[in-house]
């Protein structure tokens, strides 16, 4: 369980988040939504311990993450950034292995078990055929799958993603989110992702955090948060909320005139 207690965070004295309290249950699939620049990534990075709030604490399983050692934390919670800049291209299998770092540490070599885990995860994310390729030769969708694989070999219960699919086509978006859903449902992982695409959020997330003006405007089940009143207010656009005829999940349709 992740317990965020009254955190405030500011960059250079400009307040980004103010007095935010949230509780994420285990095995939930959380989407963090809100306007550009509202602090979605900031909130996510605070949960990961990458940013330190000016006030408040965050607890994972009742342990203060800012008092937990980084190595221990890295075995509990992992992070998939939007992209990684590859100035030097690594081979896919090396790159995925980097995710085992919390277990291998500075001096050790990967063991048989590490290789086995990397192999299994590459199977799971369907990138086995790319194993010997260089990262720079891959397409955007393949890169994200490799990045996901790297995050998964960390074998953490909580997985955080920062706009992991926002530059992908809808097919690849679906692939990544289906994998996340399977991780969530079959492997009991807690997933927290910032996301712009409200329809993806509506389809896959169990709960949604709607951030607005430094605060949490709404937090709860997808159906509860994706109501036209809040969404119209936050995004300043007229919308219709429909239901996906197949999955019965909410669909947000913007009205442009």
């Amino acid at each position, binding site marked *: 369980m992740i317990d965020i207690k009254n955190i405030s965070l500011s960059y250079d004295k400009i307040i980004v988040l103010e007095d935010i309290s949230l509780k994420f249950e285990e095995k939930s699939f959380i989407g963090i939504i809100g306007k550009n620049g509202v602090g979605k990534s900031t909130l996510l990075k605070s949960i990961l311990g990458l940013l330190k709030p000016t006030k408040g604490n965050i607890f994972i399983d009742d342990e203060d993450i800012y008092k937990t050692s980084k190595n221990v934390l890295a*075995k509990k919670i992992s992070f998939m950034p939007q992209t*990684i*800049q590859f100035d030097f291209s*690594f081979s896919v299998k090396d790159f995925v292995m980097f995710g085992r770092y919390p277990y*291998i540490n500075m001096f050790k070599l990967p063991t048989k078990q590490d290789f086995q885990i990397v192999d299994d995860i590459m199977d799971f994310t369907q990138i086995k055929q790319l194993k010997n390729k260089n990262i720079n030769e891959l397409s955007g969708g393949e890169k994200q799958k490799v990045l996901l694989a790297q995050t998964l070999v960390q074998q953490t219960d909580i997985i955080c993603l920062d706009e992991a699919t926002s530059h992908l086509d809808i097919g690849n978006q679906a692939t990544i989110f289906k994998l996340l859903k399977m991780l969530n449902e079959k492997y009991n992982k807690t997933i927290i992702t910032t996301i712009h695409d409200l329809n993806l959020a509506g389809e896959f997330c169990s709960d949604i955090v709607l951030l607005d003006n430094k605060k949490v405007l709404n937090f709860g089940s997808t159906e509860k948060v994706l109501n036209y009143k809040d969404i119209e207010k936050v995004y300043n656009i007229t919308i219709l909320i429909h239901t996906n005829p197949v999955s019965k999940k909410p669909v947000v349709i913007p009205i442009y005139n």
Partner: protein
Amino acid sequence: MKLLFKFILLLIVLVIIFIISMLSGISDISIIEMFKSLFFSSDENTYTIINQIRLPRVILAIVAGAGLACSGCVFQGVLRNPLADPFTLGISGGAAFGASIGFAFGITKLSWVFLPLLGFCGALLSVGFVYIINSKKEFDSNSMILSGVVASYIFSSAVMLVFSISSSDKLYSAFMWLMGNLSFFDDRLLYVVTIFVIICVIILCCLGNVINIISLGNEKSNSLGVNTSRTVKYLFLLSSLITACIVSCCGVISFVGLMIPHITRKFVGNNNRILMPFSAITGSIFLLICDTISRTVIAPIEIPIGVITSIIGGFFFVFLLLKKAGKISI
């Protein structure tokens, strides 16, 4: 296994080049005489040439090559910039400044210890400059490179200033030093530098894992449990110390730190755990070849080794770029 084979092959090449280098010079010494002199005893003349003149110099070339190449790898990986090298961060500028003060004011003539000492202090001065600026910025790669470039500019204009107010006869030896030269060093320094650099290189070679992780960027490496800014700080200090030591001994040898890692990348890829030891050996081989050329081609005149490294390395690198045009990664 393939890698191990490559590594052993590289070591064999190093040994061969070592023997060739030991044998080349003005006086003709046979290979048997050389080994006799190295491992047993021989007549005084051969002993002087082999054990006292050539051997220290060859060892210095091997150590300096390994040290520069290794710190080059570290800087490129940690700063995530293919153009970073030990000198991007202003270390050579600082060393050049210290040494040129020594030459210009005649301090170097007082005792052998002053030239390396001043070079080392100058290098530390610029390392300190970069360190202090960046300690508040959590060792962000962009700001490190920028402050290093700034330090380089400041110190190189300081060198020009010192040169402009000193007399021309002092300028010549200062110039030779600035272009890199393995004939200035003193034997007494050799042991200290050799042991220190070798230990540091071994440490760095073992740190390939963490350099890989840091090259993924701050956020990713922190989320993998690495204290990135602290690790970058120590890696930076360690590699800077290696470079400062080498520079204070042999002057500014450009190119090795920048290009050797890139040349090695073409053969073993970018995984730093593998790249580091390979780069170290490649650097040794390369610098040893360059030094042998520099002292034999137009003997007894010596060409500054920095000139040779740049020419050979530059052409070799262009050749590699053209050959593997499809797979260029810089």
